[in-house]
């Protein structure tokens, strides 16, 4: 498609795609490079002021795809337009990170922070470098320090919870997720992740908490299959425990049975007309059956 043949509506469609991906923070870098490169190479004149944010978006995606050629040219355009910008400097740092020139990247970020100690982007990049280098405990320490100052940074709390999960420090991961649930009470994913952490910690109390939060996640999004399975599994384990009262056992068997029926239904609907998921449907049925046996 040459530039003369592409209609304005087509260009506008591509711009909308890029905007959507920007707003939703998708990391579909190959698609972004695909669409973005065409827009920038062929239709730059029609992008107006959007062009700068598109250069930034495409540059980051290009780094993700090892397209240093594209990243470099985007960076040059941005440097030319915004010669003293910290935001552009940070992008230059990201390029150095992609090239694994971590010392040079850190120097760049340190110079930003010297100029502006409140620059959160530069601080986060430094923490990302620690992560990339496998220095988890340092990354965790830095991130904790960061959060003492910027206690409302959701992205940072989530990053910290991920780091703790990787380090098997489930208690601290739970704490981070509690923060996130407090500030995002309608987010079913945080509830479900919290439940998974509690389940992993194990023990009757944690299993009951897990069950409650799986249930909460389902209330917020009744199609969350992880939450549904989680509810089924935690209720089944509680019911099977010799330490619970008859009433608790009965209640949890009820929850488990409800979850099992929901799971069955979901898989029946999914399996309709699709020969290829016969296997997964059968596997689920067998699993539900076998767990029924251990429960009673």
């Amino acid at each position, binding site marked *: 498609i040459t530039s003369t043949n592409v209609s304005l509506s087509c260009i506008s469609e591509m711009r909308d795609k890029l905007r959507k991906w920007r707003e939703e923070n998708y990391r579909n870098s190959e698609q972004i490079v695909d669409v973005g490169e065409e827009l920038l190479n062929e239709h730059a004149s029609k992008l107006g002021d959007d062009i700068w944010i598109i250069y930034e978006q495409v540059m980051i995606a290009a780094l993700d795809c090892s397209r240093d050629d594209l990243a470099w040219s985007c960076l040059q355009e941005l440097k030319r337009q915004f010669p003293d910008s910290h935001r552009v400097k940070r992008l230059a740092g990201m390029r150095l990170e992609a090239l694994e020139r971590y010392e040079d990247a850190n120097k760049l970020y340190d110079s930003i922070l010297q100029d502006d100690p409140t620059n959160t982007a530069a601080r986060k990049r430094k923490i990302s470098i620690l992560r990339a280098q496998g220095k988890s405990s340092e990354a965790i320490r830095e991130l904790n320090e960061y959060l003492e100052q910027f206690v409302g940074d959701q992205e940072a709390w989530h990053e910290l919870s991920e780091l703790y999960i990787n380090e098997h420090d489930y208690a601290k991961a739970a704490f981070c997720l509690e923060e996130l649930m407090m500030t995002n009470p309608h987010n079913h994913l945080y509830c479900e992740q919290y439940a998974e952490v509690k389940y992993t910690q194990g023990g009757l109390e944690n299993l009951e908490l897990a069950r409650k939060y799986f249930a909460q996640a389902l209330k917020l999004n009744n199609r969350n299959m992880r939450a549904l399975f989680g509810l089924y599994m935690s209720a089944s384990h509680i019911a099977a425990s010799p330490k619970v009262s008859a009433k608790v056992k009965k209640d949890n068997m009820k929850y488990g049975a409800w979850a099992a029926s929901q799971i069955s239904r979901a898989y029946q609907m999914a399996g309709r007309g699709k020969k290829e998921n016969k296997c997964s449907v059968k596997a689920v049925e067998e699993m539900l059956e*076998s767990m029924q046996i251990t429960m009673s």
Partner: protein
Amino acid sequence: MGEVELSCLAYAKMYLHASQFPRCSVNGLLLSSSPAGAAVCITDCVPLLHSHLSLAPITQLALTQVDAWCSQTQQRIVGYYQANACVSDSSPTPCALKIAEKIFEQCNNAVLLMIDGEKMFPGCRVPPIVMYERKDARWTLKDKHTIMLRQWEETCSIVNQLFSSGDQTLLVDFDSHLDDITKDWTNQKLNAKIMELISPANGNV
């Protein structure tokens, strides 16, 4: 010191799995349709997770479901694979050891396979894998000479073909299945495509 044979099908899907999620740690189970014996024939694999590998519920769920599927299809779980997000580190994580240990309880020549991300580049002549076996209550590195990848050149070419045809996007892992349960984690469609590419003259891989 038993021999381990890794089929093209199993290798291809592991490779595709690691490639599909380059920024994540991924893991999966290694299966065998051969009877138990001194040698381990890894004939297939099931890609499991690309997030929160160390959390219990989904891992337990996946193990149970794969177990059920295996008994329906006369296969056994004979090992576990993992590719770490951090490319320069291909050593088994505590979670990898834990799951491998569980598999060992049922299969005494179980194999722990770590994918070496640093060797995953086009033209690399060495298989990007490191294998461990259980000896003296520890997981120890396996002698490379006991690991067989039949038709290695052909396997590489098949993997390349999958990428150029775009078929690598067909791969479904258990995590993706939970996001959309109409997706098939047994990968029947992809398996068929791979088997098509494996020339019949080379026998059963």
